[in-house]
């Protein structure tokens, strides 16, 4: 069973100055977002396997789109995140079924590595609802300069029987990070944490 996609949206944000100071190189983050039909809208279904498969398909597709939008090779990505918003005729568990069982592996394949957990958020909402996609370093979750979030919204989605699925990728951390913590230069990259 493959995803029935109505639209795909990519967003690239590039910050070149912050508080009047140059950000060198500019920080860049991209989100690729798919609007899909929710096969279980309007009814309770116990077995959500179909959504696991859809998550697997979208993980690779959206990671590729996000990396392409940044114009980088997958391994050059530094942080990532994922999120889903379920339309009103679906349940939160549908978002979980897409995001958690199978979406991560193809994302990591596109990015070369990805020892860290992919941070996620989910919600139920109507068209235009904002998704705040949490971001964390892909190889070491404790890298403090890369704790971030990216807001995206699709004006006409999710409709009641749809799900909005987003994967975000960056080639950088926050602009002008200066709150200490583990640095990218100190990553061991073994346990996904440090």
């Amino acid at each position: 069973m493959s995803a029935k996609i109505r639209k795909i949206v990519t967003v690239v944000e590039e910050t070149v100055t912050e508080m009047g100071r140059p950000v060198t190189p500019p920080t860049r983050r991209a989100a690729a977002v798919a609007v899909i039909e929710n096969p279980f809208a309007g009814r309770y279904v116990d077995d959500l396997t179909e959504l696991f498969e859809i998550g697997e398909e979208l993980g690779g597709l959206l990671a590729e789109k996000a990396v392409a939008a940044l114009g980088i090779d997958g391994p050059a990505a530094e942080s990532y995140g994922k999120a889903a918003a379920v339309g009103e005729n679906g349940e939160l568990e549908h978002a979980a079924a897409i995001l958690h069982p199978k979406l991560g592996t193809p994302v990591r394949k596109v990015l070369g590595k990805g020892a860290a957990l992919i941070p996620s958020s989910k919600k139920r909402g109507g068209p235009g609802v904002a998704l705040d996609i949490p971001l964390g370093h892909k190889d070491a979750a404790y890298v403090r300069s890369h704790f971030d979030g990216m807001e995206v919204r699709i004006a006409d989605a999710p409709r009641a029987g749809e799900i909005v699925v987003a994967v975000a990728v960056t080639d950088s951390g926050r602009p002008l990070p200066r709150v200490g913590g583990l640095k990218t230069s100190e990553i061991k990259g073994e346990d996904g944490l440090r």
Partner: protein
Amino acid sequence: MPEVEIRKRLVTVEEIFHEGGPPAATPLRRGAIIAVIRNPFAGRYVEEIAGFMDDLKPLGLAMAQQLIQALGGDPKAIQGYGKGAIVGAAGELEHGALWHVPGGYAMREALGGAKAIVASAKKVGGPGARLDVPVTHIDASYVRSHFDAMEVGVPDGPKADEIALVLVMTTGARIHARVGGLKASEIKGEDGLR
């Protein structure tokens, strides 16, 4: 006139496959580029502002070209356009009007001489404000299939002393256009209207 100071750029591309009807042979693409710049006139009334339009021309052209690239790189594929501005709360609506000339002419130049007036919308708003940017056919304003709009916004802008400048382009008609009127195939292309 003051230098143009950019804080960030956002590029959004929507790829629309269907909206509940038959999937189109060629998906519709809609793209928006936003530059968040410092408003040099924020916080006070300045009588002579028109010179800033010239300063914005290079930015307009660079934005138009970047947007064409994001939509695939072929200027001939662009069929609809629109523009807009969101002025931060310490500015006035008139500052948004500075974008009419540099934004509009930049797109016409980048597209090789489009004839129709560039539809526009502007407002004063805070960070996260949304703007519905109207879209019409690039050569004939009356083409009914190409009347469209794209909602855009910047999650963290414009700040009070900023302006978000927006250009929008599309690659075709609404995905299931079927309400008659002047067709793109019937354009005379002389007066920019029909």
